[in-house]
């Protein structure tokens, strides 16, 4: 039976590996197949990198609170930070069909979160901080296409 797990990490790029181990280990124990575990790893890394770089401006004295849970067949990752909020709608999707000259690689982080997770939600509160909840459904079998793409 999966029990909710929580850990707090320093908001520095050096923490990404430890965050990855924490989340990937829990995702495997929750029953996600290897493909889904990798998708979760990627989405979490992108989200945390954005927190470190944009919410905290790259200065390394903030924290990222990470809560992992399983309920109703869903693996949920909740990330909370206390940095600057942002408007996800203001980040344009990258044009993944653009030619090399027109590709910058920017915007891919949010794009991966949108396309790899089955659902996600942002909340911004001046006192409670910024929250990102991401959900991956636990389903056995071959790697499947995620459901959310918004």
């Amino acid at each position, binding site marked *: 039976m999966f029990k909710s797990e929580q850990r707090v990490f320093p908001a520095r*790029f*050096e923490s*990404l*590996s430890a965050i*990855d181990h924490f989340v990937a280990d829990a995702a495997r124990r929750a029953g996600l197949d*290897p*493909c889904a575990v*990798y998708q979760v*790893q*990627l989405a979490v*890394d*992108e989200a945390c*990198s954005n927190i*470190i*770089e944009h919410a905290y401006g790259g200065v390394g004295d903030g924290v990222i609170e990470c809560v992992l849970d399983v309920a109703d067949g869903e693996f949920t990752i909740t990330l909370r930070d206390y940095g600057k909020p942002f408007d996800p709608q203001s980040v344009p999707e*990258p*044009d*993944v*069909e*653009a030619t*090399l*000259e027109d*590709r*910058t*690689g*920017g915007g*891919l*982080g949010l*794009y*991966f979160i949108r*396309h*790899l997770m089955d659902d996600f939600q942002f909340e911004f509160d001046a006192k409670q901080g910024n929250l990102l909840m991401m959900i991956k459904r636990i389903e056995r079998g071959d*790697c499947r296409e995620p459901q959310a793409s918004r």
Partner: protein
Amino acid sequence: MDLSTKEYKRCAVVEVSGRIDSATAPELAEAFNELTSEGQYNLVLDMDDVEFISSAGLRVLIDVQKTCQRLNRGKLVLAEVPEQICEAFDLAGFVALFDFYDEQIDAVGSF
């Protein structure tokens, strides 16, 4: 992340293992910069032992490809890309931007 570089007659191979993320991507970029600054624009990235690559790593690959292909000087090709990373490349629209090879020897032989 660990990386090593081997220079051959017609290209150079960068072999990477471990994670390519926001912490380690600068080191990968530096390895490629050293090669291109020497005038080596035919490059192979062997990803057989890469466990993970985030958009920070993908941005390095785009930048290197742009540098190599500018003025048709050369190109960056990818070898032995793990399946899960292939899927991420596909999602990001990278498949059209690079040549992929199942074996390093074939990637080297393409030059």
